[in-house]
């Protein structure tokens, strides 16, 4: 790794700069892996769902918010604001889908579609930040405990057992009572908790397999230090698996957020879980109301299911890239 940075300055006539070559190699590896991934139907389905949501949340919503949904002097109100909006032209809220509000309005008179789109980037951020923290911690701890073994290993593995047995939701209920949990704090808590938990055990066992390979001994014979071996040999070999588990963790984080919001435990302005919570607390997800006021719970419910499913599907597709045994010849 060290030579890539030096490579920028020192290059002879025979060589291209190693840095450029590395980029080319990475591109080639990416193309090859993409070819395998693209053959997995389930993975592609997941990817498409994620892309559609991403476009809706990151592109369509800002455009809509700054054009059609913008408060003008004509309507003189913020009828499409996902948090504070209210459409005075509608007599009864929640109102069923109409041309003005494609997915209807919620009990407080806010536009459902606007809420849905507004939440999308936040859900992404939550899922990905939590997953990144999880994977970073899991990879580091898993590798270190596998490599050093002994007391370090025992400590982290018992800690992982503890975290796995930990009542997650009650813990968050307590935390949310003690402090204001916003989206970022939630991502941090989920990331930390799952980073010390299950993923560590999986990545540790993978690191154990890599640890005994002759190429590790080969590096030791050349005098490599322990951190050098961990960073240069073990981590690159478990990275694909980490990346795979990251996809599953995104699903987990988004799902946890939905559950907590549904219980009204989070201090966030708007999310899919919160949309269902609003409908529920106002008494619209009870008895026959469920069928009548379907637009209150179906869109956020679908969105949660689809995005969680999509990241899981991507994970399944990546599984074929990471585990050559799953590939069809």
């Amino acid at each position, binding site marked *: 790794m*060290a*030579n890539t940075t*030096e*490579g920028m300055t*020192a*290059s*002879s006539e*025979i*060589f291209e700069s*190693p840095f450029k*070559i590395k980029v080319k*190699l990475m591109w080639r590896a990416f193309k090859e892996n993409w070819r395998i991934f693209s053959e997995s139907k389930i993975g592609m389905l997941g990817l498409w769902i994620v892309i559609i949501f991403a476009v809706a949340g990151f592109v369509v919503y800002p455009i809509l918010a700054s054009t059609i949904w913008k408060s003008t002097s004509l309507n003189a109100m913020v009828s499409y604001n996902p948090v504070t909006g209210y459409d005075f032209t509608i007599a009864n809220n929640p109102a069923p889908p109409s041309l003005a509000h494609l997915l209807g309005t919620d009990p407080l008179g806010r536009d459902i579609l606007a809420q849905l789109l507004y939440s999308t980037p936040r859900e992404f951020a939550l899922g990905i930040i939590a997953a990144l923290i999880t994977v970073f911690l899991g990879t580091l701890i898993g590798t270190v405990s596998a490599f050093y073994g002994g007391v370090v290993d025992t400590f982290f593995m018992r800690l992982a057992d503890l975290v796995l047995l930990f009542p997650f939701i009650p813990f968050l209920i307590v935390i949310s009572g003690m402090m204001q949990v916003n989206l970022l704090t939630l991502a941090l808590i989920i990331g930390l908790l799952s980073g010390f938990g299950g993923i560590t055990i999986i990545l540790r066992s993978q690191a154990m397999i890599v640890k005994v*390979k*002759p*190429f590790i*001994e*080969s*590096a*030791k*014979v*050349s*005098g*490599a230090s322990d951190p*050098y071996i961990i960073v240069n*040999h073990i981590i*690159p*070999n478990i990275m694909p698996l980490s990346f795979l588990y990251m996809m599953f963790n995104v699903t987990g984080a988004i799902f946890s957020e939905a559950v907590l919001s549904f219980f009204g435990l989070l201090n966030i302005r708007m999310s899919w879980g919160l949309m269902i919570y609003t409908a529920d607390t106002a008494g619209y997800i009870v008895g026959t109301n469920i069928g009548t006021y379907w637009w209150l719970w179906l869109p956020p419910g679908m969105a949660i299911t689809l995005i969680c499913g999509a990241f899981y599907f991507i994970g399944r597709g990546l599984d074929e890239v990471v585990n050559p045994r799953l590939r069809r010849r």
Partner: protein
Amino acid sequence: MVDATDVVLKVENLKKFFPVRKGVFSRVRSFLHAVDDVSFEIKRGEVLALVGESGCGKTTTGKTLVRLHSPTDGKITFLNRDVTHLRSAVDRKWFHGKSQMIFQDPFESLNPRKTIFDIVSEPMNIQSEGSLKYREEKTMEILKRVGISPPNAFLWRYPHELSGGQRQRVAIARALVMNPEFVVADEPTSMLDVSIRTQVMKLMMNLISDMHMSFLYITHDLAVARYMSDYISVMYLGKMVEYGETEEVIQNPLHPYTKALISAVPVPDPEFKRKSIQIKGGIGKAIDPLPRCRFYDRCPFAMDVCAKEEPSLVDVDDGHKVACFLYDKKEE
């Protein structure tokens, strides 16, 4: 330039024991005597073959010498410096810069996520030797020498894009890139196909004589050892049972185990009828061995004395050493 008959590596009474637990709740500590009281020396440009069956301690000896294991007891002297313990970082750097190892499996000894350049230049990288340009030139040079040509066509490939023979050449290049004084090769050709094996053997022979290295060649194949080495040392259950010049040991084996081993090697000649020496049973494990000859149970010539004492390695004929009471003149 140092004298050609300079002793590079001297091993005295090397021991490596591994603790084994007898049962889950057992408090009694037992030890597997993987290497037990082994002494030898290797001179510059000399190849010593360590021969024996699996589990005889030959690989453990090799790994202990390059410090993948730390010795339980004994003394290792490398270029007149005591390297038994390597306590200081300076000593370690010095030693690891001058000793290397080639592994058996060319598919497992190269990191699948590194390019050939990364793999071959890694020893220089670890030892932070030279500039990047220097490392590139050295890598190209050594790849050319091990017969990977043209080197720049292979520099940025990954191990899985190479054939078994090419991989083992790359592994050799990696081991030799820093001009080591001492190299341990652990069955480097046993995973290769016949026609490739001969190529790699010849390559190593040429490199050893060109680069004046001291080589410890670990193999189970006496026929390969015959071609590769100047001296042969036969190991049995952690003990060195015979040592001598290669042709001398092959043509005139003394220890009953060596005789059995040589007689069991198949000969590529259908008209040749071997007389094989039958030995009983199979190889065991040297867990807390009794103080007697370890070959006692299987030896067709076992005597009473063999059950009472351990034979020591004695010189019987001009450097041909054997650890067997059959050749112990005092006993006559």
